[in-house]
């Protein structure tokens, strides 16, 4: 597989088209706006939690993303993976994703945890694109922190 094909895997191009869970919805406890200052990619993201503490459920993640296929598909994959999980389960996924993205392609991700998101292994090899893939994931982390602060 060429570098290009390993970056633009079908799963990714597919998510970029389908944009699962896209659009901003109510209710939500926190909304954040993140920008990739280098390229201008943007995401507005809301989380809705059900319950309190680590066992709270991620009842919804809704978003509005403007960006390249890597950044929009990352948002789609993420929401698909995290909605419906408890915060602590979701955190396991997030940590695994971060480890892979910071691993420069050397990290062996746990496919059972990451499911479709393993497709971003090809992105992890391209330092310039790592930020694209992380944009919505960082926004999610930020939103959860704020939602918990406010409660």
């Amino acid at each position, binding site marked *: 597989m*060429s*570098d*290009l094909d390993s*970056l*633009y895997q079908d799963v990714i*191009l597919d998510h970029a088209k389908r944009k699962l869970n896209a659009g901003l919805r109510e209710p939500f406890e926190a909304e954040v706006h993140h920008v990739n200052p*280098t*390229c*201008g*990619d*943007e995401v507005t993201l809301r989380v809705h939690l059900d319950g309190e503490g680590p066992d709270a459920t991620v009842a919804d993640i809704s978003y509005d993303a*403007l*960006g*390249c*296929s*890597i*950044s929009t598909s990352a948002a789609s994959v993420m929401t698909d993976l995290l909605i419906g999980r408890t915060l602590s389960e979701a955190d396991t996924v997030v940590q695994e994703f971060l480890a892979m993205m910071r691993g420069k392609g050397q990290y062996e991700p746990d496919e059972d945890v990451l499911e479709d998101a393993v497709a971003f292994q090809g992105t992890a090899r*391209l330092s310039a*694109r790592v930020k*694209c893939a992380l944009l919505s994931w960082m926004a999610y982390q930020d939103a959860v922190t704020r939602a918990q602060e406010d409660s």
Partner: protein
Amino acid sequence: MIQGLLPDLAVVRKDFPILERTLAGGVPLVYLDSANTSQKPQVVIDAMVDHLERHNANIARAMHQLGAESTAAFEEARDKVAAFIGAPSRDEVIFTKNASEALNLVANVLTWAEGSLRPGPGDRVVITEMEHHSNIVPWQLLTQRTGAELAWFGLTDEGHLDLSRVDELIDERTKVVAFTWVSNMLGTINPVAELTRRAHEIGAIVVVDASQAAPQLPIDLAAMPEAERPDVVVFTGHKVVGPTGIGVLWGRGDLLSQLPPFLGGGEMIETVRMERSTYAGIPHRFEAGTPPIVEAVGLGAAVEYLAAVGLEDIRRHEHAITEYALEGLASVPGLHVIGPKVAEERGGAISFELDGVHPHDIAQVLDSRGVAVRAGHHCAKPAHARFGVQSSTRMSSYLYTTPAEIDALIDALNYTRSYFKVG
């Protein structure tokens, strides 16, 4: 045959060692990102190495032979830069760290100026919607800090300054008019003489960002009628085949001499007592601390190199390449150039959109074929917002660019379309 190319293009290319590089997969480099930073000829690298290996010393302060050699090399670089832009006086040439610092320097010393030079409440600072962030943010900070009003020229759909509101924008309340000579996003060449004349009529200071102009347009400040000569012109070393770490601020001597210092320390002083200091004259007043010495040496060699090739010839070459590129780009289905469509009205940076593919993804596919372009907002977010886009792809050529490289770009763009199955 394309008219206007540099006759010695093959020889010129040999001057730039990086152009022989190959990238992943053994593909040759097609460098079309020169508006971002230019590549460096061997003569610039060699001048820097020679300085570091044989003449390195601090300047001004050092009395010994190395110090004298280093000082002479640094001050000769000032002479060379002065000659490059036709500065009326070499002491009006100030070395900064880049164009951004030069613009901030001006905005800062005006903020701290005394008397009528300082914009205050009721006064106005005018910029344009096509500025690089480095010519926007300093003026936002100035106006926030002084209470002056920030206003700006909008843009026409063709990517020119909308001069219809000129009388409203430039009136007796206007203290500063700051604008770019050549846009780094749209490529547009602005009417420097006309705008400067207008601004001077009402006594405003004119600051011109020549970061994209200096690489490709012959500049001769001394030859301009005084009424049409800006008061300050800045550019950056790394875009004129020089190193990073150095920029240039040229300013009218009698204006600079009235302005307070920017940074304090080192050789910018006349005398220092614990209570209070007095400051040196220009250019030293604005060069606090150890200046970019080896960078000045490199920049001196760079502008000498450009002058030897000939700025008129470089301009003609850029023009020919730009015309050829505009034609090629027009042949790609779904591709829209943002900015003037005629080579006469623009410099060599061409930004465009391609329906259905995000600029990042375009740049990625291009990169896999060795074609280096820029994707993003090019530090010109407001100009992008004006055209309703969040980012764009930009190709930018320079004196070493060949028509074959433009062909490679166009091929790669067509490949991008098929890769992402658009159209």
